[in-house]
């Protein structure tokens, strides 16, 4: 559960989110139809990208019977704002139980805004090897890019002013699926 004190507004819930995931999965399936399953893997960016990656993998399995491997990636060690933030993010698990060399890696993140997390994730990922391709899946693209980065698969596009932070709760972590915005303090 979230316990933010500042202004807080729910944007999407439940089915709406499932549908967005299906949109992403469908696009991915189309894209990788001719690639052997073992040449594709999903990697979720900690923390919100991890449930997304797992749900996409599940959806692909349900659609095509293909088993796509899933890894997790924490980008704290690759951020460019250590010391600029009030507090340090907590380091979560990085678990990539497969060789990423020459694979098609689909990075998954819940909310895409500035592109800085993705930039850090690209740096982190390349320290694990040399993927054949890296693609990006984002559940929500809320605009506001600061880096020349775009998502290859987007669940939903929303337009939110810069005074808002867009956040997500996942059933797996918080007991409910919801996208909400919080006014920056």
């Amino acid at each position, binding site marked *: 559960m979230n316990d933010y004190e500042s202004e807080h507004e729910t944007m999407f819930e439940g089915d709406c989110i499932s549908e967005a995931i299906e949109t992403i999965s469908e696009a991915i399936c189309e894209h990788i139809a001719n690639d052997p399953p073992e040449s594709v893997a999903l990697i979720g960016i900690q923390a919100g990208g991890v449930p997304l990656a797992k749900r996409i993998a599940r959806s692909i399995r349900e659609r095509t019977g293909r088993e796509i491997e899933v890894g997790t990636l924490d980008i704290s*060690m*690759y951020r460019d704002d*250590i010391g600029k933030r009030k*507090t*340090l*993010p*907590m*380091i979560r698990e990085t678990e990539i139980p497969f060789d990423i060399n020459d694979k098609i890696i689909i990075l998954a993140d819940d909310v895409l805004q500035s592109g800085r997390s993705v930039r850090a994730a690209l740096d982190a990922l390349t320290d*694990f090897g040399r993927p054949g391709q890296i693609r990006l899946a984002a559940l929500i693209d809320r605009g506001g890019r600061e880096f020349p980065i775009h998502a290859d698969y987007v669940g939903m596009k929303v337009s939110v002013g810069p005074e808002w932070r867009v956040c997500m709760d996942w059933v797996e972590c918080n007991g409910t699926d919801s996208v909400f915005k919080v006014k920056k303090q």
Partner: protein
Amino acid sequence: MDFQWTKKDLLSLYDLSRDEILHILNTAEEFKKVSQRNVKKVPALRGRTVVNLFVEPSTRTRVSFELAEQRLSADIINMNADVSSFRKGETLLDTLKNIQALQADIVVIRHQATGAPNFLARELNMGVVNAGDGAHSHPTQALLDIFTMREKKGRIEGLNVVIVGDILHSRVARSNAWGLIKLGANVTFAGPATLVPREFEQIGVRVCHNLKDALAEADVINLLRIQLERQQRGYFPSLGEYSRFFGIHPETLRYIKKDALIMHPGPINRGVEIDSAVADGPQSVILEQVTNGLAVRMAVLFLVAGALK
């Protein structure tokens, strides 16, 4: 809620809460993976400068810190200082204020004088990481010991940890006790009465002057290096006698638990506090401690850097 680390210094486990200690250990787990990768380096401390000031000589702790800094992409300044230079010329504080003026971010300090890191932490804006001060504190050693115990045993709570040797002069023993007690372990200090004062009972440590009694239920046996200097000052008659009554030999293994871990902070005096057969045997995790030390130090430097304003 996520745990938030806010301390700009790591001085002693005495100052840390249970949650803070666990947070370092958890963070270290992720850093341990970095050293298992092909590319063993992350850019976390890129653009940061770390000063290693070793007023007391050290090889292994220093190498471990230096490698940790390199793997975090920090810039490094190494300073070797003789304690006498601080007594005659510039003070320790002046030296560090000069380094601070060069925009260095963190100082890793080892010093003979107990409390020297605490003193510096109070006077400097830089982060201060204690790499061992006098017989007081050696937090990264204790953290790596506890990390290793947790990794091997899966828990700390309820673990029977016995630390054997020159407790009186050991910062490793003190730091381990503070950390382990906070995490719920049962700590025993064992060794001759001259080196294991009873006062430790008041912080909740069991004091035992008979090795066999001490080790009977041990899950972890942490052996401390015994120094010849202690014999010369009359704490025990000879290294030979020490070894006979307080050293760990192959015969010792017969009356300890089969899965008890044998640890040692190094450097080892083979044949004194531990026989080679035991140090190199299956129960020994001495080299894993060294590996884990790197991860723990990376975690500590990362957290301290993140708390700097």
